[in-house]
């Protein structure tokens, strides 16, 4: 990747002009500003979602009811899920996409900057609707994030607020995805062919297609809930000729691709970090691209594995079991490729690399428990038990969130021009890893022993592991406060970062741009060979 030089052309005075104060953020069309807003919004939502999870874990610290009424517990559990998925993890990844995609493909900005602004500013109203639903009569919805009727249909006005919020979030995601697809397909610098793009861009391109495909499905499903509630339809009401099972099918047709929407960008981040700290190109680049695409395609035909206990025919169970098991193949290819990247490399272990390795190790554990759950008979005995809770937190927290942390440390110098404190970053990693495993590893045992999920109170045999899990959760949360302090200190008084902070990094934002990246970049596209 040799190319034209850079930095100098940005000294030009009028380039960095930007509005100041609130209007800068309200009206901005700059991908970096919008990326920052997405990241901060995600952080705020993660704090809210984290607070709810601490409520849950505090109630589960010991048997009996101590701090939450069962219905409040259900609301906490439901909103924890909705907020973390739609409010925290997804926006954070969109924040990464906004910041990095234009810089990594050598574009000046996203293809539709105004739409970009609009897709961000739709999020706060949705978040407010969700948060406000706690304070309306009947409290926030209690159906779990899956919104299954008929229980969901019993919700009060909070049900409608949630439906509206999901609609807004969905529209925002669709707009964001269209923007990403258009940007990647049309705004690449000369010479940046598709098969030269950094893997992060590839994973987001594929994710954006997934989003465009499934968000409307979710929108359809929640609209049917709305009309069932208010306009006398009976899509999901057996008494009127409908079928509650149909909702589950539609929901999971969205919901399974959704989990890949969350994990593919994480794969992308890890695929940037591991080569950088191995000082070696990513092993099997092409096969990584194909594996990502196969995972995305397979994700459309496995939704039934969420529904093995609905009572589908044997043929259905077998089909979904086989299809689900198949996903292990491309996922395995990815893991093998990452390890092969490290093989015969020249490794160093700065903070981002630690997170990437933590991701690799623990995400794979989540992958294996996923394989265990793919086996229909085993799933039947573990479905809706804590084993499932453990499984998806290994993929969502140790998977998605570890990649996010790794990515934040990796690109922080580029974003802010400041270095974070290495020791603090490493401490944060070990703190989180220990807290995470303390919280979620015991939940495998709870699930195996038969403890159902989504209960505020439990039998005495489950007490010990629950107590350990709760202690772990508070420890884990404290670590994240430490993380915020670390970043804040770096922002205020960190050492200046180098333009190419990481020796092994080879994507354009490192090779062609200074740190911090100027407000406007690549107004003249670099030419790559």
């Amino acid at each position, binding site marked *: 990747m040799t190319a034209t030089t850079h930095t100098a052309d940005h000294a030009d005075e009028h380039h960095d002009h930007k509005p100041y104060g609130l209007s800068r953020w309200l009206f901005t069309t700059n991908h970096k500003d919008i990326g920052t807003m997405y990241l901060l919004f995600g952080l705020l939502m993660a704090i809210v979602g984290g607070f709810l999870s601490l409520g849950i874990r505090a109630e589960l610290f010991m048997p009996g009811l101590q701090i939450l009424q069962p219905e409040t517990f259900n609301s906490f559990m439901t909103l924890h899920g909705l907020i973390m998925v739609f409010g925290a993890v997804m926006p954070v990844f969109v924040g990464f996409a906004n910041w990095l995609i234009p810089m990594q493909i050598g574009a000046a900005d996203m293809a539709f900057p105004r739409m970009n602004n609009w897709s961000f500013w739709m999020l706060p109203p949705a978040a407010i609707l969700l948060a406000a639903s706690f304070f309306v009569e009947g409290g926030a919805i209690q159906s779990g994030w899956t919104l299954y009727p008929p229980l969901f249909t019993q919700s009060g006005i909070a049900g409608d607020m949630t439906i509206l919020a999901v609609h807004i979030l969905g529209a925002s995601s669709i707009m964001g995805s269209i923007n990403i697809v258009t940007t990647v397909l049309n705004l690449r610098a000369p010479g940046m062919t598709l098969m030269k793009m950094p893997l992060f861009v590839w994973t987001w391109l594929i994710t954006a297609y997934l989003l465009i495909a499934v968000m409307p499905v979710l929108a359809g499903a929640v609209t049917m809930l709305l009309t069932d509630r208010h306009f006398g339809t009976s899509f999901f009401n057996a008494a009127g000729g409908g079928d509650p099972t149909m909702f589950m099918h539609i929901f999971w047709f969205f919901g399974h691709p959704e989990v890949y929407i969350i994990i593919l960008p994480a794969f992308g981040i890890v695929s940037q970090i591991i080569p950088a700290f191995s000082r070696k190109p990513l092993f099997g680049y092409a096969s990584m691209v194909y594996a990502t695409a196969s995972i995305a395609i397979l994700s459309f035909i496995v939704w039934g594995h969420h529904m093995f206990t609905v009572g589908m025919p044997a043929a259905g169970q077998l089909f979904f079991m086989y299809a689900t098991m198949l996903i292990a193949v491309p996922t395995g290819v990815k893991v093998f490729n990452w390890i*092969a990247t490290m093989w015969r490399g020249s490794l160093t272990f700065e903070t981002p690399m630690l997170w990437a390795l933590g991701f690799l190790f623990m995400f794979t554990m989540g992958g294996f428990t996923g394989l265990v759950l793919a086996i229909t008979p085993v799933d039947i*005995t573990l479905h809706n038990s804590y084993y499932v809770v453990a499984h998806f937190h290994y993929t969502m927290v140790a998977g998605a969130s570890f990649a996010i942390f790794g990515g934040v440390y990796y690109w922080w110098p580029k974003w802010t021009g400041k270095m974070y404190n290495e020791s603090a970053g490493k401490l944060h990693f070990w703190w989180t890893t220990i807290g995470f495993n303390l919280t979620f590893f015991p939940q495998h045992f709870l699930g*195996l022993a038969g403890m159902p999920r989504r209960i505020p109170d439990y039998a005495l045999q*489950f007490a010990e592991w629950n107590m350990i899990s709760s202690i772990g959760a508070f420890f884990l949360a404290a670590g994240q406060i430490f993380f915020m302090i670390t970043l804040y200190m770096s922002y205020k008084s960190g050492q200046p970062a180098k333009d190419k902070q990481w020796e092994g990094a080879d994507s354009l934002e490192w090779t062609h741009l200074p740190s911090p990246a100027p407000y406007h970049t690549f107004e003249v596209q670099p030419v790559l060979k």
Partner: protein
Amino acid sequence: MISKSNIGSANTFGLARLVRLVNPVMRLGFLAIAGFATLAHASYDVNIPPPATGIASEIYDLHLYILIICVIIFVLVFGAMFYSVFKFRKSQGAKADVNFHESTLIEIIWTVIPFIILIVMAIPATKTVLAMKDTSNPDLTIKVVGYQWGWQYEYQQDGLSFYSSLATPWSQVGQPGVPASEPKGQNYLLEVDNPMVVPVGKKVRLLITSNDVLHGWYVPTLGVNQYGIPGFIKDSWFKVEKAGTYKGQCSQICGKLHGYMPITVVAKDPADYAAWVKEAKGKFAIKSDASVAADTPPKVAAIVDEPGKKWTLGELKQAGESLYAANCAACHQADGKGNPAMKAKALDGSPVVIGAKSSQIAILLKGRPGTLMAGFDRLSDVELAAVSTYARNSWGNKTGDMVLPADIKAARK
């Protein structure tokens, strides 16, 4: 799991037996890691509890079989990772071999090998799936209806029908800010008033449905976990091999008291079972068509409203009688005296019934959250009017007035 009986091992496969041997070792390992082994009475179980049916036994073995394969792969793969982490450190002078970044052969190998391993996993799993789905030729069929929040069991052959709900007193649970006033018992939250009783060694087929929202009839040791879906009947089966008590809980969130909806199955030897049926007939017999009660969907006597129709007290009360029998008597009893076992209050003399019409209408439409009393808003205006009128003018209740369909319509708003 050493104590686990050998049920079902006839149809298990070799490796699974081997893994069973490994299991206690694994368990000890976890215990040692956790370092809590010394705590008395504490339960640090790390595996599926001992299975009680052939299917559960197959599931148990299957899980261990898959787990062991996964652990082996995990150790190999992450062995390679840790080897790299220690061997290829820059600080120890490792130079990156930048040409080692592509190999079609390697890619093919690590695509094909996992595929083969998956096939090896899928074969025994398929066998178990087919066995679990084979509900044919049951010796006994029990209909299971989920309620917010309890279960109803209906033994069609034996003519029994009864409710089964949480027996743990609320005084053991406590309230936010109010500690439990009684210590928690051994079976806290896992005890019911009337357990499902089944004969040992007989194939029991369950027909599972629900009266309101989704529920999940989940007893891990029997290998059954099946949603109850309102308006649909799904089936499942089990055959308990040994007399004993098996416990489970509702597995699908169903509202406020989802966590308080346990399941208990008592398996008795056939002779004891026969004795139980005899005794149960006294309490739980399905007496007449009417008290088949709270069956889903409820048997509703035909009564239709015609616009402008002038109802008389007699007409409404007469229609109300059969509606009451079909929808309410299961809990409140034909004589309106209620059923303390279900905490169903007496309607005879209840101020809610004979007081303002609106108070009874309100509870009929909305139910009373947190109790077995669910809302009946699925009944039509005229049906609700009839049943309310009936309740206000039966047994000792003599208000002499009518609740009209229009009153219900207004209350629905």
